[in-house]
Structures are given as structure tokens and as C-alpha cells.
């Protein structure tokens, strides 16, 4: 189970991995997604589990099936994913960070300064 964790159903993790690849562009729109058997062999999981993961992606409109050829990344999939993730960003990252900062006595100005520092070391734009 290459790199998969214990707590989450495997098919969800498979779908999340594929979504990550689409979001960061390694799996481009219009490109063929890995097949059930390829995913099964790579992650060392049951093919039914791999198929379930792919079906989640189809239901979400991120992949589309082309009969007899395979599954392909839908046009607009990347934008859709990035929009979703922006919406979840506050919940998943900002809120826990602010909570921990409060506990450590880091005030909002100091926190903002830390984010600026981190952004510039990672070469991000500081706008």
C-alpha cells in the first residue's frame, strides 16, 4: 500500500492522490488517467478499491470515461479543484495555525510577519 495511511478508506485516498496530481498539473487536462489495474499494481491494492477511487473522480466530474480507451482528465478539472481547495483553505490551514499561534502568545502582527518571511524564503510573490 505504497504511502497510504490507515485511517481513511483506501478508495478515498486513491481519489485524493489523483486530485493532487491534477491540481499540481502533473496530470494534465485531457491526459489519460492511470487505469484500475495500474493503480492496483502501483498501490498494491485490490482492483475493486482502485476502481472505486476512479469512480469517485468520475462522479465529481474530474475524470471522464471514454469507452474502450480509458479515463481522461476533464477539461476544467484543475480549476474546479483549485476553487474547492481555496474554499477549504481557511478551515484546513488558517484556523489551526491561528489557534496554535494564540496558544503560543504570537499576536496577529507577528503572525503576518512570519507568513511574509516564509513566503519570501520560498520564493513566493509578496503582493
Amino acid at each position, binding site marked *: *500500500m505504497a504511502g497510504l495511511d490507515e485511517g481513511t*478508506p*483506501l478508495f478515498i485516498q486513491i481519489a485524493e492522490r489523483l486530485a493532487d496530481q491534477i491540481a499540481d498539473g502533473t496530470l494534465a487536462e485531457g491526459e489519460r488517467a492511470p487505469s484500475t*489495474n495500474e493503480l492496483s499494481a502501483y498501490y498494491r491494492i485490490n482492483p475493486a478499491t482502485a476502481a*472505486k477511487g476512479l469512480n469517485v473522480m468520475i462522479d465529481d466530474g474530474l475524470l471522464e470515461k471514454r469507452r474502450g480507451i480509458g479515463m481522461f482528465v476533464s477539461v476544467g478539472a484543475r480549476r474546479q479543484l483549485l476553487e474547492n481547495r481555496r474554499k477549504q483553505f481557511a478551515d484546513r490551514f488558517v*484556523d489551526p495555525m491561528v*489557534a496554535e499561534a494564540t496558544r503560543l502568545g504570537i499576536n496577529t502582527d507577528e503572525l503576518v510577519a512570519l507568513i511574509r518571511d516564509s513566503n519570501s524564503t520560498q520564493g513566493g510573490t509578496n503582493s
Partner: protein
Amino acid sequence: MTSVISVDALSRQYRGQLALDNVTFTVESDSITGLLGRNGAGKTTLLRIVAGHEFATAGKVSVDGADPATSQALMRRMVFVREDQSYPEIRVGQALRVASWFHPNWDSDLAASLIDEFNLPVDRRVKKLSRGMRSALGIVIGLAARADITLFDEPYAGLDPVARQIFYDRLLAEYAEYPRTILLSTHLIDEVAGLLDRVLVLDQGQLVLDAETDDLRGAATSVSGPIAAVEEFCAGRTVWNRRPVATHETVVVAGAFGDHDRARAASMRLILEPQTLQQVVVHAARANATDTLERTKA
């Protein structure tokens, strides 16, 4: 999917000892099912009855609608690889040839490539093989038979982790290409967890867990930290196990935790860890032992 193996209220008694106690389950066609449990839990007895090598004391077993103990046709559609498989005084190559006569779907190319991968000496006498090599031979036969119903009983005694990985990878590849019904008994639960559609857990002859593997993922979580905080966090949850050390403790509770719970745990300095399938199975067996104990006392 249709069920291919159907076990109904099956019991098996040996001289007053119940090896199987009223076991009921079905196995769907084209699936991989793990048969888990401790030594002496009844796994081998169950597989032997499904394979038709042994009779039930009570209850009914049918495989594709037929009785495995009497159906000749069924025998050719089944392969049963045992942990302690004994072979007559023959060489590895002959053992494979015999197996190829017996199994109509035998794939000799597959057998050859597996022999290569496991480094099996074809000219050596089976009796002279190491334990691991004998297990590898069983695995070659089990996979190359391409039998509709494939039963593996702890097929890897003496196999090292590399060889076991070969087995898992080839099993998956074979299954993906030629789906079949596979029932695999094993101790190495976490190694096979990703392969299994379903798990059946036997304990003292009783079936104590019958579930889809993915449903068991996140079935239990451990919570570690200062005792007071752990107790506050776990209030209202089903506790499976509690292990204190001085002022700290680790409590295993049923169920998974969502984002909100995780954030709360982090703010309380608690560590949450999902439990592996193996741990869930151990708990199921232990809970059954406690029940049995209490029933005996009552």
C-alpha cells in the same frame, strides 16, 4: 455479484472439541477474502471443508451450488494450497506437471515465470526443498492453476519478505487479469490489508467479524496524552482498550475522528492515531474471548 461460497450454520466437532461453531457467511464471486484469526481458531478446518477434504459435523457448505465433498466437477475448478502441503517422492518439475494435468486452466508460461522469480530449482526433489521453497512451489501451483476458486491456507511459511511481496504482486496482477474467487488465510494481516475486499475473523471456532475491509479502516483510533485530557476527549465513546503509564494513557476507541475532533485533540495536546486492520482484528478476537469468559462464568 453473486455468492460463490456459501457456508450455513457450519459446525465441526473433533472428540468433544468444537473446531467450528455455527459459522455462517458467504463469499462473492471474483473477490479476495482474508480469513484471519489466531492459531487454532479454525481457519484450516474451514478451508478444508470448503475444499471438500473434510466433512461438516452440522450445517451446510456449498460452492457454486454444489457440495464440495462429493462434486467431482467442482474439484477441477478449485485449487487448495496448504501450509503443510506434502508431496510424494518427486521433483519440482514433476509436481508442476501433475498439477497441470489436474487443472484445466493451467498456464505453463505463468508457472515458468513464477519459478524463475522465486528461483525454484526444477530438478530438485520436493522433499529436499527448504520450507520457504516448498511454500513458493505451493504458490506457483495456486496461481498457475487459474482455478475459479483459489484457496490459500497460510501459503508462505518460511518465505522472506521479498518473496512474500512477489506473491502479493503476482496475486494482484493475476487477479486483475483473470478475476477469480480467492480465499486466503493469514497471520500477516497488515501485509495483505490492501489486497482484501473482505475479512472474516475466526476466534475459537466462531466467526467474530465479517466486514468489508474498507469499512474497518478507521474503525478504531488511539488517543494518547495526559489521563484527564484523554478521558475528557473520549467521554461518550466506546473504549476498546486502555493502557496507562504514570500520568499518561493510551485509549483505543471505536470509530474515526473528523477534522473538528482532530483540531480539538491538537488543542488538548492529544495524539490521535488510526488503528491498523491488524489491531482491529486483535480487538475483535479479544472481545470475543471476554464474552466467552463471561458466558462461562455466568
